[in-house]
């Protein structure tokens, strides 16, 4: 089993900021829009280097989304930046009509997703965003796991033609994926091969899944750990191949159980290869204020919750 090490932790939103700057240097059509959260989204470096390509829209997210759709007409590639909550639920109709249905090349970049936003509480801790966005026809949904992967994903979506939802967050996470990775939209990343159980994780839960794999190894359970950074399109081949080998699955995500990665995997497996499945996710509940690590514990989103779910699912094989 591969041991992933790290020397540094960083927030995934900083990976977005770095990726946006690099994408803008590569392609003069990349433009950025932000709704009064430039610092929070780490868009400052982009703004400083390309002030004429940065559009401060103030606290008016609906206007930002439809404006971004309009900006594509004439060849621009708009990246919108605000919190995940204000990138999705607040502006769902604007995204649905002006971006998704109109098939506009807009990149909806969403920070502070999930419980790890922490102290600001449930008003800001969107846990439904993946579900809302994956339901929109044609929308790509990506939730990378660390700084390097978020940066690589940002560069990759600039090259991709079509609407994308890129979800990232606030807490500092171990940086364990390669700086020079070639991010392929829709392609799962095998982190550790195993024979007894498949663990499919996305976003911040990927590191927890890796750690859970080591705990399980000590317990004599050989877990396969896969990073599903793209929830839509889902890498069905990778998932089906893995579960055929292991015969059971645990999914892990910082999102509602309804509508998240686990829901997508359940749909796939029910249709193609019915397999025992357990989901590590928020169970039909809003979050609350608190230190991120304590919230993750309280709402059952830690490595030990993954371990418990593995034990449960293996009994069902």
């Amino acid at each position, binding site marked *: 089993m591969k041991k992933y090490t790290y020397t540094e932790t960083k927030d995934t939103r900083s990976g977005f900021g770095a990726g946006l700057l690099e994408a803008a240097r590569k392609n003069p059509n990349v*433009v950025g829009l932000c709704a009064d959260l430039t610092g929070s989204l780490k868009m400052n470096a982009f703004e400083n280097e390309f002030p*004429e*390509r940065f*559009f401060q*829209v*103030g606290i*008016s997210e*609906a*206007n*930002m*989304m*439809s*404006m*971004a*759709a*309009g*900006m*594509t*007409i*004439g*060849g*621009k590639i*708009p990246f919108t930046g605000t919190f995940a909550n204000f990138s999705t639920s607040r502006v769902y*109709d*604007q995204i*649905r*009509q*002006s971006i998704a*249905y*109109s*098939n*506009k090349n807009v990149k909806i970049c969403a920070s502070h997703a999930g419980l790890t936003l922490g102290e600001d509480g449930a008003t800001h801790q969107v846990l439904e965003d993946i579900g809302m966005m994956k339901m929109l026809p044609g929308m790509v949904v990506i939730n990378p796991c660390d700084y390097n992967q978020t940066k690589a994903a940002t560069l990759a979506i600039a090259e991709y033609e079509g609407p994308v939802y890129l979800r990232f967050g606030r807490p500092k996470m171990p940086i364990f994926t390669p700086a020079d990775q070639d991010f392929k939209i829709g392609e799962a990343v095998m982190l550790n091969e195993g024979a007894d159980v498949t663990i499919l994780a996305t976003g911040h839960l990927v590191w927890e899944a890796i750690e859970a794999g080591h705990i399980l190894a000590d317990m004599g359970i050989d877990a396969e750990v896969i990073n599903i950074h793209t929830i839509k399109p889902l890498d069905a081949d990778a998932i089906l191949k893995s579960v055929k080998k292991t015969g059971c699955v645990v999914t892990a995500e910082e999102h509602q159980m309804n509508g998240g990665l686990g829901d997508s995997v359940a749909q796939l497996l029910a249709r193609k290869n019915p397999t025992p499945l357990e989901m590590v996710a928020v169970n039909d509940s809003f979050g609350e204020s608190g230190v991120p690590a304590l919230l993750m514990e309280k709402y059952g989103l830690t490595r030990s919750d993954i371990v418990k779910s593995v034990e449960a699912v293996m009994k069902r094989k």
Partner: protein
Amino acid sequence: MANTQELQQTVSQVRRDIVRMVHANNSGHPGGSLGCTEFLVALYFETMKHNPSFDMDGKGEDLFFLSNGHISPVFYSVLARSGYFDVAELATFRKIDSRLQGHPTTHEGLPGVRIASGSLGQGMSVAVGAAQTKKLNGDDRIVYSLHGDGELQEGQNWEAAMYASAKKVDNLICTIDLNGQQIDGSTDEVMDMGNLEAKFTAFGFDVLVEKDGNDMAKVVAALAEAKSRTGKGKPVCILLHTEMGHGVDYMMGSHKWHGVAPNDEELASALAQNEETLADY
């Protein structure tokens, strides 16, 4: 450049197209479409520089965005009569497998449509975005948009208006179709919007008021005047007073024909009032 009489002939044909399209499906929105016919004909046959061979990016062209997408019949007729697609395709309006959806969309690839609209209040933001891109591209053409008056009850318009003036989006001409009607009654009854001239002025627009939006010469003149006011640091707004249902006597001035189709007898009456000038589709 067309003269007013030629434009008027096109208007008459477009009005025939509108009532025939709506009648054929027993669905659609004739009232607002008829009221905005002079405006759209003026825009596409006189004011705008545009290319019916249609390219989505529209670089070097004036662009138009219809925010109140329910008046799709007038939009489709004017696009077809301008040469964006064959007028025969108007017969497919609202039917299955058609590019002429109930509300305009890019989804089926209809030439001339650059954004989906129908869910109200989004078009001004879209137009502002397209206008910003024109500036980035060094493209000095103008972005036009049309909005219903009832549509202004959607708050997003005012977000877009605030942005447009704060950021000096002065290559933008937003026209408001002031017909004073919405589904549940007059705009004053449903949600009195007060003094819209004062509101747009306060939001930083250069505002023109045209009291007769169904007088072709006046509409053409208002658009020319609006265009002359672009490039001066302010977005431009035309408050265009129109009459819902204009050109069909029994529909005129009433909200009842917002989204109701004429029956056979009513169609015959409407057609009798609008001469066939360019051959029916």
